[in-house]
């Protein structure tokens, strides 16, 4: 299997990998667990395998799923000033833009709740069969493609920083109490970032293309 001398143009396509960011073509070399293969021209990470990454991602994704549902249902923040109080959930916050700005409300709800929720469900749907060495789920390929396409539009962590800023703004106006959803959301942000870190896209595509026969 030593093709070191063969020019790239003569190699079978299965033994090439192309950097999606800069189009540089390389002879495919699989890094060991924990190593990262990067494009030597633009330094984009191409293959980043980790031991038991599949199981770790599934565990994290399940936790994220529970936390998203919890964070949406339980009260998020509560404000008290001079006898009046008001408690809101995350969905209340997302739907704050009323009247002609209802579209902005829907977009906000999608960015902070529904797109992260959809992505975690797609991840579970695609990865569970792969990790259990079963044939891929039906439509697993478009499902994973959608999940990757939605990645930039999943803004839970941006919302978390927004919370911090909003709290400082309100702090001198009234007393603010954190509800259970607030802590759930905090944990959620860390887990969502971990989930994206562990995932090696190339390995997932590879296993969807060549499923193990069970």
């Amino acid at each position, binding site marked *: 299997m030593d093709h070191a001398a063969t020019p790239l143009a003569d190699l079978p396509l299965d033994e090439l990998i192309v950097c*999606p*960011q800069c189009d540089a073509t390389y002879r495919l070399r699989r890094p060991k667990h924990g190593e990262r293969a990067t494009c030597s021209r633009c330094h984009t990470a191409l293959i980043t395998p980790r031991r038991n990454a599949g199981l770790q991602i599934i565990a994290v994704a399940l936790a994220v799923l529970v936390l998203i549902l919890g964070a949406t249902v339980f009260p998020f923040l509560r404000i008290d000033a001079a006898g009046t109080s008001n408690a809101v959930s995350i969905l209340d*916050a997302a739907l704050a833009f009323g009247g002609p700005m209802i579209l902005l409300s829907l977009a906000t709800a999608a960015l902070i709740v529904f797109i992260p929720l959809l992505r975690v469900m797609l991840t579970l749907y695609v990865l569970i069969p792969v990790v259990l060495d079963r044939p891929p789920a039906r439509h697993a390929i478009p499902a994973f493609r959608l999940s990757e396409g939605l990645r930039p539009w999943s803004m839970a962590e941006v919302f978390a920083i927004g919370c911090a800023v909003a709290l400082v703004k309100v702090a001198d106006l009234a007393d603010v109490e954190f509800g259970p959803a607030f802590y759930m959301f905090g944990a959620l942000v860390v887990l969502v970032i971990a989930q994206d870190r562990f995932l090696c896209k190339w390995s997932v595509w590879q296993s969807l293309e060549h499923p193990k026969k069970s």
Partner: protein
Amino acid sequence: MVSMAVSGTPEKILSARELGLVACTRCAKPWPMGTETCGRCGHNLISRDELSLQRVWAYWTVGLMCYIPANVYPMLLTRTLFQVDESTIIGGAIELAQYGNWGIAFIILFASVAIPLGKFFAVAYLALSVQLGWVTSQRRRHYLYEVVEYIGRWSMIDIFVVAILSSLVQLKTLASINPGTASIFFALSVIFTMLAAQAFDSRMIWDAQAKDEGPNHHD
């Protein structure tokens, strides 16, 4: 970290296009030139998106157009017992700074003014550099592109702050905060600049060099 290129041999990096291949930008698999969809992940294959720059400029223009009313109209309408206060993005940040919240004022100014303006300049610079066929500083320009792609989402902070404040601060007669007209323009501006950055085909940054050095790598 392992580099994909074989170490020791200073071979020239070839692009898939030079090898007569078209690569999938989603799953990194090469196909013979002319293949229309990726056989592995089903993504549409385009060797170089010729219309990419047109889309970049279109989204860029809409984003810039939305950014102007976003700064002119009020972002927050604060009603307290005796007065109604309308504050724009910059006005709100200055107010925070006057109350001594320098850190938060800085975050707001950074996320809502510095990042959007920087993004407009960066995307325009990248698009122009490709249009004019610049050969230099590919690595730096590629890095700039990655920064722009990564940082774009963070401009939504201000929209989320407005959402949290205007749902939370509804204290009957005492005080209430409502979103102003600027919020929708600001959100649109962020979304369109994100689309502009995504429409940019970063592979074109590296093409000028290949063209310049000529096809001297193989027969």
